[in-house]
């Protein structure tokens, strides 16, 4: 990691980062670890570019100095992690008003996202984008993660992270395809309806455990097809469709006259 840190300021760094991002979208989990940009390492130039991006794309709602307005949160002190989460998942910039901002293809590339994050981080202290180590599932303990997840997360996101409903059309999204970094950032910053789980509440190690647990769920179920991981309702639906469907078919065949 030291070698990587040393090259961070290389002029080819953005290219490398871009490549990394492309590879990540290709589905290589190991590389899902994010653009390792954090507030303290961002240089002045990044902040300047970020400011321009912000004023062009975000200031309409969040205000020219990110001070927010009625119904729009101030971004002072939200930190780089919040910006990276909102922008890299495409939730921001928001395209239309709805019960909540929804995930869509990201509007900015990894470099621009990092610049935006650097700018917002420069406005006030806030949580930084986690390092690759912090979100590495292989270093987490899935058993501890399962326990933390059950108590703190499952009531909204469902036992295996398949998502669930909130009030008035809002919902807790499925975590089946969320990157490890975004999961970490969401816990840390509490986007939208989600409460904040700061490091005193769920420690950084526990956050990594949660990520380890969630990554395990992507292996599917030991029992076979997961049927969406939605629990008894989908199981009930399938017993009517598959079980009773096949057997009524068989019964019709048994009752029909042979030719």
């Amino acid at each position, binding site marked *: 990691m030291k070698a990587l840190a040393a090259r961070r300021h290389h002029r080819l760094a953005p290219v490398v980062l871009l490549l990394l991002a492309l590879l990540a979208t290709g589905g290589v989990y190991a590389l899902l670890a994010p653009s390792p940009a954090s507030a303290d390492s961002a240089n002045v130039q990044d902040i300047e570019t970020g400011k321009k991006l912000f004023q062009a794309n975000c200031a309409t709602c969040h205000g020219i100095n990110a001070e927010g307005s009625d119904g729009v949160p101030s971004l002072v002190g939200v930190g780089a992690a919040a910006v990276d989460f909102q922008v890299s998942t495409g939730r921001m910039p928001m395209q239309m008003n709805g019960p909540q901002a929804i995930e869509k293809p990201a509007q900015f590339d990894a470099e621009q996202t990092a610049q935006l994050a650097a700018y917002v981080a420069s406005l006030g202290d806030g949580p930084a984008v986690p390092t690759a180590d912090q979100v590495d599932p292989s270093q987490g303990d899935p058993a501890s993660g399962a326990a933390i997840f059950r*108590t703190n997360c499952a009531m*909204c996101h469902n036992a295996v992270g398949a998502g669930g409903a909130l009030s008035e059309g809002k919902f807790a999204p499925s975590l089946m395809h969320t990157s490890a970094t975004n999961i970490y950032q969401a816990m840390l910053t509490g986007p939208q309806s989600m*409460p904040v789980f*700061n490091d005193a509440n769920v420690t950084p190690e526990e956050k990594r455990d949660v990520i380890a647990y969630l990554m395990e769920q992507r292996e599917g179920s030991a*029992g076979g097809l997961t049927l969406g991981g939605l629990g008894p309702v989908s199981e009930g639906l399938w017993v009517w469709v598959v079980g009773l469907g096949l057997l009524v078919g068989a019964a019709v065949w048994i009752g029909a006259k*042979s030719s």
Partner: protein
Amino acid sequence: MSDNQHSTDLTTPGASQEVFADPGMPEHKHRRADHEPAADKRAELQVVVLFVISILGTIGSLIAYFAFRPDGTTDGTRFSTLTLGLGMAFALLGIGLAAVHWAKTLMSDTEVSEERHAQRSPDEVREVAVQKLQDGVKDSGIGRRGVLKGAALSALALFPLTIAVPLVSSVGNDWNVGKFRHTRWEKGMRLATDPTGRPIKAADVTIGSVFHVIPDVSEEERTSHEWITEKAKAVVLLIRLDPRDIESDQSPKGQTWSHEGIVAFSKICTHVGCPVALYEQQTHHLLCPCHQSTFDVANGAKVVFGPAHRPLPQLPITVDDEGYLVAQDDFDQPVGPSYWERLK
């Protein structure tokens, strides 16, 4: 209607004008296997093949059993389950389909008619039956020996008490339903994180945070088997709001049950007792995932939607000398679902 035996041939004048007559069973149509030896042979072969598939299924299942030892991983268990199950399914479906196919193609398919008889027993049988019962009643003298009848009935009615009394006295443990009123919380008890048991400092609870809280008891108590019953009443949700957002809480006049925007409410729903845990940071609403009762945390956890009636009870909290959050006291009312004598 079926009794009507008149002809319904419309060309014949004088047929019944009221009801049609039963045309009788439709003509029997023969199957191919009934008159084509080749079709018969083919059907037989199909049945044999199905039985062979069943045998192969059983063998496959046994091979799967010995070849794939589940290693405890998701993949390993899934593969073992799949192979054992598919072998079993083939073994069973082979037999089932073979038997049905056999019956359908090779066994007789001529429908036969069997007579039914009324369920009612004929009068003479009834007479004999009634006579026998009357003889028995007369023989026992139950009609005239009133005291005997009373004694017999009383004895029969009473004996179940020999089982019921010991059962009922013990089945509800000590029957002390007053326990619903008290939880593990007491004055000065620290609030700790669930399930890790770390005490919580007020400063750690940042705005927008939600902590799932249990009483700060010893590790020993938390691993005892009584704990689950205590925890079932004591779990609390700790939330910090911007103090300006708080419209009201449940503090009585002259007391403060919250601390600088930090409020603690029982997590047990006042509807039927599910853990109410879905906190929406922006609206300050708490939603129960079981039946969608919604409580407004900024307004004393009042019900704003759904089947619950009462607000979630608030746990009065403050901070101790070291800055840790502590309970001022137990809840001032029973937590969880309503029951008949709740207010008594």
